[in-house]
């Protein structure tokens, strides 16, 4: 039985839910629909993903839609991020709804854009047509822009404009890259719409024009790299991520970046195979990855705003993923594993930072004191989340960072390993310093302002527990999934 028809459904359902949000009466109803609807979409996505992992890739619509191990893995991570963030949205906006700062009209717009961006990101992942994938990425930019300024403050508008313009230009550059890729297929037997099908290009990869393919890849890396937050095209990222409401920041950092990086990953095996596996394309990813890690580390060192700190940490982690994929083989497996860990940890951290921000009325790190005592659930989860993100031992990010380092050493890329270690150490020390200060410094006399709620605790501690388990024990089937997904990136594991 072919379940390919589920792929268009997966785009349609969030689209319809988004429209439904526009007709709801109250803000509470919108937020509830966001949570339930996202979980519903996650259920469909989960079924499709399991099918792909157990059996074969799914195709639909004359092969314009495809879900293989790589995109299914991304889809699974994405639905986890969206589900946690949607449930968290109900908690986060509760105070604002009560105070009247989150009106019904704003809520309807929020709900519509929430599901709209969900649909656009699904479109990116399930398109086999590289042009449609581009349309999806551009759509995510436009739909998420207004999510940043749900509260139209001066700073949010500034961040939104930067995001909108930088990413639109970046994505336009990526379109030029896509055109060059299509042009590279003109000497082959591919014609019309086939020239942009990823599977068709992969099968005819040795007939593609390598020069045009290389030129196209450079444009694609710059274009999609802007959206993915790779340095030096990351300038919009800390502003947008810090000004957006926290559930939106969580989605931005947790998956929007990965969606853009995914597009680059699709083109990498084509370029590598057509240029005879000389590592030309991988080298670009390694260089940009290292630059992102080192640059982000410098900014984290002097950061005073918790949400900006988390945003720069995303630049660092996207750099790590790019570096791992660039190293290839074992490194690519580690990079995909790292992606899951980072997305979960970052979602939880942004969620906790948002609640602390509401409680303290600021995002300035220097004002966060005694957070573990004052806001027990969210304070604890923020501290643990930060520790996970810098790679404290039993958690899974320690493992994936260690594997990436090992991959670099086994390829005798000593300078790469050295720079990676320096970057990681700087981040480790500076974040640890802030985390300790926030958690315990001068916490005498601080009163708990939040009571412990089981639902809040479960929402943040389940993902953290998953990261802990994955850090000490990886199920064999999960390893198989990672290996199958990384095989699609080319190279030999």
């Amino acid at each position, binding site marked *: 039985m072919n379940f390919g028809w589920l792929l268009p459904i997966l785009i349609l359902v969030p689209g319809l839910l988004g429209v439904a949000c526009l007709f709801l009466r109250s803000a509470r109803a919108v937020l509830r629909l966001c949570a339930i609807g996202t979980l519903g979409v996650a259920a469909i996505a989960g079924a499709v993903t399991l099918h792909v992992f157990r059996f074969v890739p799914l195709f639909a619509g004359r092969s314009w839609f495809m879900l293989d191990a790589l995109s299914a893995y991304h889809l699974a991570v994405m639905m986890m991020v969206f589900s946690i963030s949607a449930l968290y949205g109900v908690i986060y906006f509760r105070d604002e709804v009560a105070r009247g700062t989150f009106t019904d009209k704003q809520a309807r717009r929020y709900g519509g854009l929430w599901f709209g961006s969900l649909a656009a990101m699904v479109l990116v992942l399930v398109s086999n047509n590289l042009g449609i994938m581009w*349309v999806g990425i551009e759509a995510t930019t436009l739909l998420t822009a207004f999510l940043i300024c749900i509260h139209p403050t001066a700073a949010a508008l500034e961040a*939104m404009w930067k995001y909108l313009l930088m990413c639109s*230009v970046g994505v336009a550059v990526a*379109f*030029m890259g896509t055109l060059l890729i299509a042009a590279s297929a003109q000497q082959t037997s591919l014609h019309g719409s086939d020239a942009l099908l990823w599977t068709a290009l992969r099968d005819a990869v040795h007939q593609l024009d390598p020069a045009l393919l290389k030129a196209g890849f450079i444009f694609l890396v710059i274009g999609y790299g802007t959206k993915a937050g790779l340095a030096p095209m990351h300038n919009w990222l800390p502003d947008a991520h810090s000004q957006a409401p926290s559930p939106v920041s969580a989605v931005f950092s947790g998956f929007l970046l990965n969606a853009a990086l995914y597009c680059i990953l699709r083109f990498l095996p084509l370029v590598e195979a057509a240029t005879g596996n000389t590592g030309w394309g991988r080298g670009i990813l390694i260089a940009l990855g290292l630059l992102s890690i080192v640059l982000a580390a410098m900014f984290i060192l002097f950061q005073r705003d918790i949400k900006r700190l988390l945003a720069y940490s995303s630049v660092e982690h996207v750099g790590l993923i790019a570096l791992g994929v660039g190293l290839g083989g074992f490194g690519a497996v580690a990079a995909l594993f790292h992606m899951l860990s980072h997305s979960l940890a970052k979602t939880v951290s942004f969620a906790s930072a948002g609640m602390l921000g509401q409680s303290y009325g600021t995002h300035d790190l220097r004002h966060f004191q005694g957070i573990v005592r004052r806001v027990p659930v969210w304070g604890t989860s923020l501290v643990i989340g930060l520790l996970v993100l810098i790679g404290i031992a039993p958690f899974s990010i320690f493992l994936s960072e260690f594997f990436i380092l090992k991959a670099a050493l086994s390829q005798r890329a000593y300078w790469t390993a050295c720079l990676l270690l320096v970057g990681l150490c700087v981040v480790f020390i500076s974040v640890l310093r802030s985390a300790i200060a926030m958690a315990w410094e001068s916490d005498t006399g601080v009163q708990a302002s939040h009571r412990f709620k089981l639902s809040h605790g479960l929402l943040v501690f389940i993902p953290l527990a998953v990261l802990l388990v994955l850090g000490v024990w990886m199920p064999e089937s999960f390893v198989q999934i990672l290996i199958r997904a990384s095989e699609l990136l080319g190279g030999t594991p």
Partner: protein
Amino acid sequence: MTLLQDTLLVALILTSFGMLVSGRLGAYIRMGALQGVMIGLLPLVVGRATPTLHVVFVAAAMIGLKGLVFPYLLFRALRESDTKREMNPFVGHVPSVFFGILALLGSFWMDARLGFPIHSSAALVIPVAFTTIMIGLFLIVTRRTALSQVIGFLVLENGIYAFGLAIVYEVPILLELGVLMDVFVAVFVMGIAIYHINREFDHIDIDRLNTLRG
């Protein structure tokens, strides 16, 4: 057809240069609309003897959007704001024109060096597309008001479209429509953004939006 094609291409470059010298935002929008119409006509004359129905349809959609809908949206945004002129761009008008000329020369040089595998009848399209792309980027970087940045983005988009026209023979219609819709939504969204920025700040000078740093 080549005479018609060359006329269109020259006019395309002239509209881009017009934007480099102009200071009034209204003139930017009109220039952009004119360029949009020409970009829409381009597929009808490039490289083909008789345009197919699909090409005509996309051209009509393009001309309608870029020649009518976008100017309408942008003029509305302009009416809302008090800013009517592009005051003190980061690079003055005379150096801007110099840049334009350099971009034009550079594009021909680059085109000669790269040697794209294209039909000889469309040979002039590539350097013109490069020039348009460069001028679009230049406008975005050097102009201060939000509105002229949007126009710069449209010029960039036009250049990329012309480039695609020359090097990809046949783009599926669904894809072309998807791209067109994205551009439409982009301009729409940017227009609303300008409205909000103007209401919050009383100006649309992007250079003065600089509180977020570090």
